C-alpha cells in the first residue's frame, strides 16, 4: 500500500527536479536530496530504517540503508502543517502533551499508518530520553526488534571508543540479520571519504559566515547541518555542500548587495521553530538582525580516518556537543559567539526538551559572562496549537531594544 508520506516524498522530488532544472539553488537541492533519501524508505533496493538523531549515517549509506531519524519526520510534519493532527492522535492514544512534539508527531503519524513501517529501528541514548523511548515504543507497537546504541559521555577515551565500535559492529549484524544488507569495508571507506569531503566544504562555508556581513540570510542555513546528517557519506552530499558554498561565495563577490542588511548578528540555540512564523522576518525587518550561525551548524569533529571508519565515527558521536555534561556544549557556544562576533542569542527552549530546558539558565548566565545576552523563549518548535506570536514578538522586541541600546 502506498502511504501518504511516500506520495509526499515523490511529489517533492518531482516538483524540485523541475525547479532545479530552471535554477539550481542550494536550499532546493538540499530539500531535493533529503527527499530522495526519504524515498529510499520505500525503494526495494534499500533497507528502510527509522533512527535516532545521533547516528553514524555513513554506515547506513555504505550498507544501502535508507535511514531517516524520527525527529526529521516530526519536523517535516510541522513544516507541512500536519503535525497538530498527528499530535492529537498520539495524545488520544495516551502520549503526554508535555513530551517532545518531534516524537509525538511521529508517533501519531505511525499510528495513523501515514508513514508506513520500516524494516529497522535504531535508537541511541543521546541526545535525549524521549528519542530513545520513541524508538523503543515504536518497536513494541509494530512488533519490530530494535537496536540501541549506548553513547558514553565525553571525554573520548580508548575504552569508550572501543565500547562504541563494538556496538556499531552489533548494529551492522542487526542490519544484516533483519535486512540482508552486508557491510563492505571498501564502500565504508568511500562513505567516509565523501563525508570528509562534504564537511571540509561546510567548514569553509561556515568560515565565510564569520565575515561581516555574513553571505547568507537568516534562513539559508536553517536546520542545515541537522538535515545534512542524512546526506553524510554520499556523493550527493558533497554536491549539496558545494552549491551552498558557491552561493555564499557569489554573495560575497557582490558585496552581499542582494542580501538583507545586517546590523545585529544573532546565534540561534539548538532547534529552529519548524512551522511558519513571522519571527525571523520580524527580526530582519525591524532590526536588521540576522541569524549568522545556529548552534547545531558546527563541525565539531576533525576529518575522519577512512582506514579506521568505525573508530572515527565513535569519536564523532561521543564528542557531540549535546551529549553528556553541558560544559563542552557551553565552550562551543562561547567559541561560536566569539568567532561570529555575536550580539545576542535566541534559545527557543522547545517545550518538552528536558535536556535543553534544564540548562537554559546556566547557558544564559555563561554567555552573559562573555557579554552575549540570550533570550529564552517559551515555545513548542513543532506543536503550533498554542503558539502565541504576539507574546513572542513583544519579548523579542524588548530583547532587541536591549541589544541595540
Amino acid at each position, binding site marked *: 500500500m502506498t502511504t501518504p508520506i511516500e506520495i509526499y516524498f515523490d511529489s517533492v522530488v518531482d516538483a524540485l527536479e523541475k525547479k532545479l532544472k530552471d535554477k539550481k539553488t542550494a536550499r532546493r537541492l538540499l530539500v531535493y536530496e533529503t527527499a530522495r533519501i526519504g524515498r529510499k524508505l520505500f525503494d526495494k533496493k534499500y533497507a528502510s530504517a527509522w533512527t535516532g538523531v545521533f547516528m553514524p549515517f555513513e554506515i547506513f549509506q555504505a550498507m544501502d540503508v535508507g535511514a531517516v531519524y524520527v525527529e526529521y519526520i516530526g519536523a517535516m510534519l510541522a513544516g507541512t502543517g500536519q503535525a497538530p493532527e498527528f499530535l492529537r492522535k498520539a495524545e488520544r*492514544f*495516551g*502520549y*503526554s502533551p*508535555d*513530551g*517532545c512534539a518531534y*516524537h509525538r508527531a511521529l508517533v501519531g503519524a505511525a499510528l495513523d499508518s501515514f508513514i508506513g513501517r520500516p524494516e529497522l529501528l535504531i*535508537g541511541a*541514548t543521546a541526545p*535525549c*530520553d*524521549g528519542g*530513545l*523511548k*520513541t524508538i*523503543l*515504543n515504536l518497536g*513494541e*507497537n509494530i512488533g519490530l526488534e*530494535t537496536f*540501541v546504541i*549506548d553513547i*558514553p*559521555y565525553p571525554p573520548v577515551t580508548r*575504552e*569508550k571508543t572501543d*565500547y562504541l565500535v*563494538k*556496538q556499531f559492529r552489533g548494529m551492522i549484524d542487526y542490519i544484516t540479520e533483519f535486512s540482508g544488507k552486508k557491510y563492505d569495508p571498501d564502500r565504508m571507506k568511500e562513505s567516509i571519504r565523501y563525508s570528509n569531503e562534504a564537511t571540509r566544504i561546510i567548514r569553509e562555508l561556515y568560515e565565510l559566515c564569520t565575515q561581516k556581513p555574513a553571505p547568507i540570510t537568516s534562513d539559508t542555513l536553517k536546520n542545515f547541518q541537522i538535515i545534512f546528517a542524512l546526506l553524510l557519506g554520499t556523493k550527493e552530499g558533497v554536491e549539496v555542500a558545494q552549491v551552498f558554498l558557491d552561493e555564499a561565495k557569489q554573495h560575497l563577490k557582490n558585496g552581499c548587495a542582494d542580501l538583507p542588511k545586517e546590523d545585529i548578528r544573532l546565534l540561534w540555540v539548538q532547534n529552529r521553530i519548524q512551522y511558519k512564523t513571522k519571527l525571523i522576518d520580524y527580526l530582519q525587518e525591524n532590526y536588521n538582525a540576522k541569524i549568522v550561525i545556529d548552534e547545531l551548524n558546527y563541525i565539531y569533529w576533525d576529518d575522519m580516518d577512512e582506514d579506521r571508519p568505525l573508530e572515527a565515527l565513535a569519536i564523532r558521536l561521543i564528542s557531540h556537543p549535546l551529549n*553528556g*555534561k*553541558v560544559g563542552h556544549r557551553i565552550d562551543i557556544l562561547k567559541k561560536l559567539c566569539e568567532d561570529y562576533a555575536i550580539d545576542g542569542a535566541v534559545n527557543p*527552549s522547545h*517545550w*518538552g526538551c*528536558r*535536556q535543553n*530546558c*534544564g*540548562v*537554559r*539558565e*546556566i547557558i544564559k*548566565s555563561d554567555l552573559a559572562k562573555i557579554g552575549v545576552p540570550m533570550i529564552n523563549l517559551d515555545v513548542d518548535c513543532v506543536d503550533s496549537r498554542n503558539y502565541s506570536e504576539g507574546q513572542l514578538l513583544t519579548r523579542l522586541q524588548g530583547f532587541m531594544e536591549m541589544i541595540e541600546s
Partner: protein
Amino acid sequence: MAGTQFTEKEMKKIKSYGRPAVGWFCTYTPLEIFEAAELTPVRISGAHGPTSLGDSLMHTNICPFIKSLVDEFESGTLDFLDALVLTNGCDAQRRLYEIVRSRKPGIPVFLLQVPKKDGDEHIERFAGEIDELKNWIETTFKKEIDDKKLLDAMDLYRYLRARLRGYDGARRRQPPKVKGSYVMEVMLQVLRMPAPLALKLLDEEESIIKYREFPVGPRLLLYGNMMDDPGFLRLVEKYGGHVMMDEVCPGRRFWNIPEPRPDKPFCRSLARAYLTKSPCSRMAASKTAVDVVKELVAHQDPDGVIVYTLKFCDTHLYDVPRLRTALDEMNVKALFLESDYSQGAGQAATRVQAFIEMLKETRGTIPRDNTN
C-alpha cells in the same frame, strides 16, 4: 518516621552516625562502594511542597522531583552533605548535576554513567564507571577501598536486600502483617543510614510486626518512579485499599537486585548485578519496565494497579500507552495518575477513592497469601 524533607533532627541523626554523608537517589547507585568506604548513604528527596527556584533555574517542564531537589539545595537544606553521587538516570537528573555544580561548587559531585543496556560490553563499561566512582570516593574522602572491604560490603548489602525482601513480603501475608505505608516509611529510613544500622532497624520492625495483623481491602500494585510519599499510601489505606506490592524507586526497585557474584573484579560483579536488576523505564535492556509490571500482575494477581507517574518524566510517560494496553489485555483495573510531586497526596484523593470503591464493588476482597 522518615519525612521526605530533611528536618534538623534528621540531619543530626545522620551526622550522629559519625560517617561522611553522601547524597544519592538513583537505584543504579552501587551503595556497596559507599559502605566499603564507611560513608553514610543519604537518599535525597524533595519536600512535596511548591517549588520556585527549581522552576526558574531550570524550567517548569522539568520533573517536579528534580525541581524540588533544586529548591532543597538552594535553601541550604542539603549543605550538610559531604558529597553527592548522581547518575545519568534521565535528562532531568543529568541537568540536576549541572545545577548543583554551578550553584553549589563546594559539594563534590560525581556523575555516574549507567549504560541503558545489559549485554556483556555494557556490563564491562559500567564496571569501568563503578571503578572510577570508587577511585573518586577514595580520593575525595582519603580512604582506601580494598577488595576485602568491598567484599564485606557486598555481603552486607546482599543480606540487607534479602531482609528487605522478607519485610516487604509481610504485607502480602493473609492477613497482612504490615501496611504499605509502613513499608515505605521504613524504606525511606533504611535508604538514609549505613547498612548495619538499617539491619538493626529491620530487627526492631520485624519483632513488632509479628504481633500485628491488618484487615485487607482491595490488594493493589503500585507502579511508579520517584514515588516516595507515604502520605499517598496512607490515602489509599484510608479508603480501604492495601498496597501489597510496589515497583517504585525507594521500594522493590531498590532491593530487587540479583546477588552480585563474589568474583573479582568486584566492580564487574556489581555492574552485572545492577544492570540486570528489575529495570526501570530508563533502560533499553532485554527486559522492559512494562514486562516487569506484566510479570508482577501475573504472579501477584492484584485487584488493581495504580500507575503513579511524575509529570514531565519522559522515560515513564512514554511507557504509559503501552502499560495501558498491557493492563487492559490482562483485564486488570488500573488507575493512572500523573502527579505533580509538589502537591502531595491530597491532589489525587477523589480519584483514588473512586478507584478503590469500584474495585470493592467489582471484585470484593479475596483472601490470598503470597509472600514472594
